[in-house]
């Protein structure tokens, strides 16, 4: 019984110390979520392509890496944009498809204001600036 109590104390303290370490890493290095977009998550259902500038490293869910200034998702039916951006101030254009067409039907110029990883991918938090393109 005493040995069990000792184990409880040891593992509890180690867990708390570990969580504090993770919290420190999270607060220091995690990209900040500044604002949740007026582009809703539902709207992200229709993202088919993203073009951007000043991106540092973009890595898709399938390990395609893009180091240039333009990148494209083109992942049909994805609910979220599967890439990682490290630059919070980049300006990107998100192409949406309408509900019937696979091809991009409109462009929304947005500012990237935060990126959050999630287990099915990466949620793009974006703030719409202006509608820039219509190529339906």
């Amino acid at each position, binding site marked *: 019984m005493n040995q*069990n*109590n000792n*184990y*409880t104390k040891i*593992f*509890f303290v*180690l*867990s*708390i110390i*570990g*969580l504090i*370490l*993770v*919290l420190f*890493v*999270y607060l220091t*290095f*995690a*990209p900040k979520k500044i604002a*949740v977009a007026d582009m809703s998550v539902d709207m992200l*259902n229709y993202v088919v392509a993203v073009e951007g500038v000043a991106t540092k490293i973009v890595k898709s*869910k*399938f*390990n395609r890496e893009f180091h240039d200034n333009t990148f494209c998702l083109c*992942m*049909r*039916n*994805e*609910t979220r944009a599967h890439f*990682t951006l490290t630059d919070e101030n980049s300006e990107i254009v998100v192409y949406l498809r309408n509900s019937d067409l*696979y091809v991009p039907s409109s462009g929304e110029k947005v500012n990237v204001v935060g*990126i*959050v*990883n*999630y*287990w*099915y991918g*990466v949620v793009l938090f974006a703030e719409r600036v202006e509608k820039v393109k219509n190529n339906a």
Partner: protein
Amino acid sequence: MLDFVFVLFVGALVGVFTGLMPGIHINTIAAGLLATSVFLLNYFSPFEISIFILVVAIVHSFVDFIPSIYLGAPEPETALSILPGHQLLMKGQGYEAVALTVFGGIFGFLFVLGLSPLLFFFLNAFYFFVEQYMAFILIIISLLLILRDPKIFWAATIFLLSGALGFMVLRAGFIDKPLFPMLSGLFGASFLLFSILHKTTLPPKQDLNFKVYKSESLQGGITGTIAGTALSFLPGVGPAQANILAMEINPALRNVRTFLIATGAINTVNVFVCLLTLYLLEKTRSGAVVAISIISPNLVLNEIFVLIAACFFAVFAGAVLTLFLGKHFIKIFALLDYILLIKIVLLFLFCMVVFMCGFYGLLVFTIAMFLGILPNYVGCRHSQLMGVLLVPTILWFLGI
């Protein structure tokens, strides 16, 4: 036709390999296939590659339980099966534990296949209805989970600490596959560490027969299928949360045998429902289905029927192979030094975590291992550790 048969059999063999290897998830294989699809398309049609991926995913969902139950080395989908499976293993019924998950998988597949005409009509409406209330459903599940625990204080503490870990790790996005170190640590490594500290040994005689009782098969199979179907097509929710839901809606799942049947059902139902979701909602809910949607966009109904036929093959191949391998592995494990074996598995998990997730992943894995061992000492239920997924999922659905 020969190509088709070849694809089915090779898919089954690859599913066995990925299922037996801890850490090799079906999503990893799907991503690899996608990367090599340009080469594969010289020899196979896109649709044949899609069939291959589906067969691998289903066979994997069966075989996956062997390392989970015998060695405590889980995948995210089988994490919760370790402890009930281990209870039976310690009674000399490890093979029966595996067989129960196989039975659940077959039951779940046949049951969800029967439900599929209903899904064709109602999935769309159900999806939008459930999605709206998902946060509240998960909050109620979490509260029930904590309040029904015999040690409420510790249950709440462990639930919240796991939730904090899950939230920070998933939000930060430093790791490519964050579920692997978290769930392997919480449910796999913690169990291995506990076994090492307390010098667990396997009973030398393992029973190689199994029985499935009518009441437990109905309770586990039906609850698992309903929970798996209800949650598999929702964003951010997967088999692990479906397991918790199943446990809360049917207290009969506190029985380890019934629970294992339900877990087997959920795992297989998840693969099948993800496929239907692709066709009906045009949404992808698993790595395998993402790969299928990219390789074979615009699936038509006839192709869906062929894929369902391939599912039939995969379910029965997965079941037969799992029972065969499960029987032979348990004989071998019973002869080996079990403590040495689990030390090797723990070392292997450490190496896999470093290889796949780097040193930050190792930190997460170690903390998860310490957290995961606590329920053994404080006496609360291990399912409280699922706060690691429930808390971030609730926050995500609340838009936080």
